[in-house]
């Protein structure tokens, strides 16, 4: 318990922890439990080593080589920082892919969180069949990342798709959305936002943790709904908001499936949906420039790491932990 506790402390989604965790002190029995825990984790740990860690280290090595997939590993040539240099200076598609990805994340992530929080607030009341509604709103996320969903999206948002038929009811002539370089990325953003179920459920859990007394006290003081939201809900929920923000930002940067399906793996029309990960895939698996693609992956990892660090730093100013005052 104790190790888990410190590890997730800043982003604990469930809010205040049970008092039991505080009562038990460290001891021999607990340490033994820890060893057992690692033993039980070992199938996963070994899997992590074999499937994640070793390939990661290998890809770091490959990022300094000209590995092209088809040539045996033993014959690759060390090229030093060439891949990284090419990325930042000569590759015409690289910065374009960065721009596409950043604008995707900057717009889709906040809107998705807002949608999740809004719906969570609505569903936090008790009315009949609230469970059904929660289920319905969560449904799109269950289909998350799925290829089928992306295909449906493509068919809904092309020139003679369902969305334009709907617009036609109001006499509006829609764009060819997914096939229009001006709108293709926006269509992907809408798809991402629509799948707000996962953060919504976490928000709901967070909302349940806010003590009712606070609202009651505020009501007595004559606070309206907005003030209650602004001065009770938001601060009390801030750790959960933070958690969702970090998670969704990382998730947002990694968007791949929908862009891949929508563009048949090309990032089109005219590179408008060329997300970073898609560009990486094309470089590595289509153009067989695996060394370069590995370098891209490492820059991506570092960039996401830095963004997360920045989020954590700024989090200090607006995230309130209810147990912070206790110490």
């Amino acid at each position, binding site marked *: 318990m104790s190790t888990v506790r410190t590890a997730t402390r800043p982003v604990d989604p469930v809010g205040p922890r049970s008092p039991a965790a505080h009562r038990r002190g460290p001891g021999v029995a607990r340490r033994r439990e820890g060893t057992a825990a690692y033993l039980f984790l070992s199938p996963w740990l070994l899997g992590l080593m074999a499937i994640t860690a070793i390939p990661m280290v290998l890809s770091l090595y490959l990022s300094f080589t000209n590995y092209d997939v088809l040539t045996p590993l033993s014959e690759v040539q060390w090229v030093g920082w060439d891949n990284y240099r090419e990325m930042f200076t000569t590759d015409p598609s690289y910065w374009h892919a960065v721009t596409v990805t950043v604008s995707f994340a900057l717009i889709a992530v906040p809107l998705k969180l807002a949608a999740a929080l809004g719906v969570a607030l609505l569903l936090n009341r008790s009315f009949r069949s609230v469970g059904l509604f929660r289920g319905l709103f969560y449904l799109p996320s269950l289909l998350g990342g799925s290829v089928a969903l992306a295909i449906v999206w493509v068919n809904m948002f092309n020139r003679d798709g369902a969305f334009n038929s709907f617009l036609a009811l109001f006499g509006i002539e829609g764009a060819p959305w997914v096939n229009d370089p001006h709108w293709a990325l926006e269509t992907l953003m809408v798809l991402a936002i629509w799948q707000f179920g996962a953060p919504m459920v976490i928000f709901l859990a967070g909302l349940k943790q806010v003590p009712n007394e606070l609202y009651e006290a505020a009501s007595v003081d004559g606070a309206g709904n907005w003030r209650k939201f602004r001065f009770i809900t938001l601060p009390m929920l801030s750790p959960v908001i933070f958690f969702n923000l970090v998670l969704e930002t990382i998730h947002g940067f990694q968007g791949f499936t929908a862009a891949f399906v929508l563009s*048949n793996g090309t990032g089109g029309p005219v590179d408008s949906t060329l997300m970073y990960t898609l560009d990486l895939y094309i470089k590595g698996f289509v153009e067989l420039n695996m060394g370069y693609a590995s370098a891209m992956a490492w820059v991506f990892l570092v960039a996401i790491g830095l963004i997360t660090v920045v989020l954590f730093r700024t989090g200090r100013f607006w995230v309130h932990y209810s147990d912070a005052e206790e110490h």
Partner: protein
Amino acid sequence: MHPTTTPAAVARTTRGHRTASSTNPIRHTGRRRLLAAALAVPLLLGAAACGGDSGDSGKTELSIFWWGAEGRAALTDQALALYTKKHPDVTFKKTWQANQGYFDKLATLTAGGNAPDVFQIDDNFIAEYAARNVTLDLTPYKDSGKLDVSKFPESLWKYGVVDGKLAGAAFGENTQGLVYNKTLLDKFKLPAPTTGMSWADFITWAENVSKTSKVPGTMDPSASYQAFWLWLKQQGKDLYAGNQIGFTEQDVAAWFELWKGARDRGATPTPDVIHEGNATDISKQLVVTGKAATSWVWANQMPELKKNTKDELGVIAYPGKPGSQWARASMYLSVSRSSKHKDTAVDVINFLENDPEAGKILGTDRGLPSNLEIRKLVADSVTDPNMKQTITFENELGKTFGPAPAVPVKGHSKVRSELVRVAEEVEYGRMTPAAGATAFVVAAKAAIGQS
């Protein structure tokens, strides 16, 4: 691919699991046993995943990998079964999948040291594989007659030569084919386009179709490399000249201008629809989705296109001088250089290419059979009217075929995707034809490593 898990390993693994999870670990089992169990589970899983059957007794299992649809799989299965019938000690491990993702998988299999013994490949990638020595040089087999190409048109088998090595045996022949919607044209009493029309006449014809039928007369082929290539050849240029590009900025600009004119006159659909048609899937070609009256494809794809539409289709040559078209290998069969059964693999290819019975089974699914005698045999026995039409068309055109160009150079697939990107920039009006031409020449040179 990993061989299948052996039953014994599964049983052991499950038991290992049970000891580890069903009893309280700390009290009932010693820590050491627990550690052993915990370590054993993943190790066994790993061992089960990697252990292959190495005991072979004169029997050969040959792995073979191709792309295609179910129909092709059924035909290939039959032909391979026939081989096994004649050579009972050779069996096949067959893997097939749709074209999309095929080359990703082939590359990863190769990287993992599991390249299939025999695999299908096309001219977009053959140079990539040959240049990296993945494919076995078939020249000695050709010379010794173990791979018999004597009945192939010479230009066809030579289309498999990369850097002086025979990297693959042409497994079917095709050529550019312009497929049009007969039903639509008949409905509006419009004339069918004909082989030998000039490009200008064709565009005027398409404009007329658009006006009369309200269906755009033609797909815009400015992003189609085979249309661009043919057009270049008719201008006395080429897509590649050795390891260089064989065209200039002016050529590209003229090509883009030609189609900008066609778009402005309403001969083609709007850019978003053209973008849809630029997908390589057969089922998305505009002539079958009803969004244009003609599509620019390969002639052997006509029967497959027909499966996606109720309308009658016709096929003619691309515009301009038809003699500029050439016999292209629609695909090749190659042998992996790391194969442990090279001779058998070559023998299988030889069988699929030259055995009359196998030829009859395979038909024209992969293009016209490379072996001219088999081709005649198949042409006489084929019943599908669309296949018949394709064969007639290709035989007719074959009389005037010019010499085939060399196989596209390494980097060709990137050149293709760059052409699509830049052509679409021009179609959407985000670049002028001149600016597009500059961009494409730069991108194409970079793609093939030309300084």
